[in-house]
């Protein structure tokens, strides 16, 4: 049992990306946020694996897909502990922890209905004004928002 579980978690990927160490309760949020349900490449999604660092974790493996910066930024908002492994020719060629940029463009919706960004066809802009615990502030209306208030576009 233990062996087959382990095997599944590390099933080989020729080229693609592994998002590891996603907190279990956030896994499906990450899946829907990245719209992975619409991707046609092969995907492996695993959840509730044991992790020494974060308790229970989820893993997403996407074949032949490499995430863009703005997608990584989105992941950073809801699973900041996650790590990204870039695989080429069965080898991890790049492994890094996610870091949230200081400025987030077009990622978050402002929760102030009177904000210009909710009333004009324009891109939202937020500044990360605190990291622990996370707080972002709207570049336009200056409204600060904490993790639980953040709605991702």
């Amino acid at each position, binding site marked *: 049992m233990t062996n087959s579980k382990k095997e599944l978690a590390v099933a080989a990927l020729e080229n693609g990306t592994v998002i590891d160490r996603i907190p279990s309760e956030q896994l499906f949020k990450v899946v829907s946020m990245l719209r992975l349900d619409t991707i046609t490449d092969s995907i492996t999604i695993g959840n509730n694996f044991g992790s020494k660092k974060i308790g229970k974790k989820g893993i997403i493996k996407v074949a032949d897909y490499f995430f863009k910066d703005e997608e990584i930024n989105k992941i950073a908002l809801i699973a900041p502990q996650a790590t990204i492994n870039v695989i080429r020719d069965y080898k991890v060629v790049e492994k890094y922890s996610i870091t949230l940029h200081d400025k987030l463009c077009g990622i978050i919706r402002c929760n*102030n209905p009177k904000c*210009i*960004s909710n009333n*004009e066809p*324009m891109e939202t802009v937020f500044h990360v004004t605190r990291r622990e615990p996370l707080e972002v502030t709207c*570049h336009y209306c200056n409204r600060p928002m904490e993790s639980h208030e953040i709605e991702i576009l």
Partner: protein
Amino acid sequence: MKKESLVSINDISKEEIIDLLEKAKSFEENPNRRVLEGKVIATLFFEPSTRTRLSFETAVNRLGGRIIGFSDAATSSSSKGESLKDTIMMVSNYVDLIIMRHYLEGAARYASEVSSVPIINAGDGANQHPSQTMLDLYSIYKTQGTLENLNITMVGDLKYGRTVHSLLQAMSHFHPTFHFVAPDELKMPQEYKIFCDEHNIPYYEHREFSEEVINQADILYMTRVQRERFTDLMEYERVKNVYILHNSMLAGSKPNLRVLHPLPRVNEIAYDVDDNPKAYYFQQAKNGLFARQAIICKVLGIDVD
């Protein structure tokens, strides 16, 4: 020429604030100068505000500039569904400067990003209103002879009052001591108290508007306590008369004390205060003209002495 909009008082440095105060002083000595000769300035008021618009338009007229614009969104193209961006793109083709007021927060910041000419924010919803802050600062500077080391006592609605928040941030350059006098429901928000802590600014909170508090103040900044701000109307009924200034309460106040109010007042300053030489709110409004002349010249890069 460098495009330099004024959207928020937080965009400008202490040195720039002092420079604006000096310029305002110079305009007060001589308000009629034709430095805007040949320039056209738009006043776009997507939300009506007669007081602010007249003050800005007087400032432009006394500097010899010409004005186009509208005073109400109902008469503008935005009532036909035109986006703010399109309105700003169109108007910035015609003019040298746009002075705008908008009911949406962040509108002026966005306009400054799409406009080819400078923007002056004349108020964007509950967000920013830097010319109000400049006229407050100029009033304090003029009546106290300095902005340094003053006791500023703010009274009334400290939760929603954008003027007190901007004034607090602008004064942070000048080593103030703050006293916040407000009912529980309208207390100074946590973020501004953290701001004070971070800038080593001492502040004291009071629920009671007592003579003890008044007597140590250099500036008494009064604001409206509005019924619609309360979730608990019983609380409103209980406090509505607590934050009213009467002339008798000024008996033991410091000789240099001045009473400010962003106007219009409702009933938070009794009419018997008006004749007290310490009442400064009407002159304060007049100072707005000079502060706005200084701001207009700054954003257009026009030097005055």
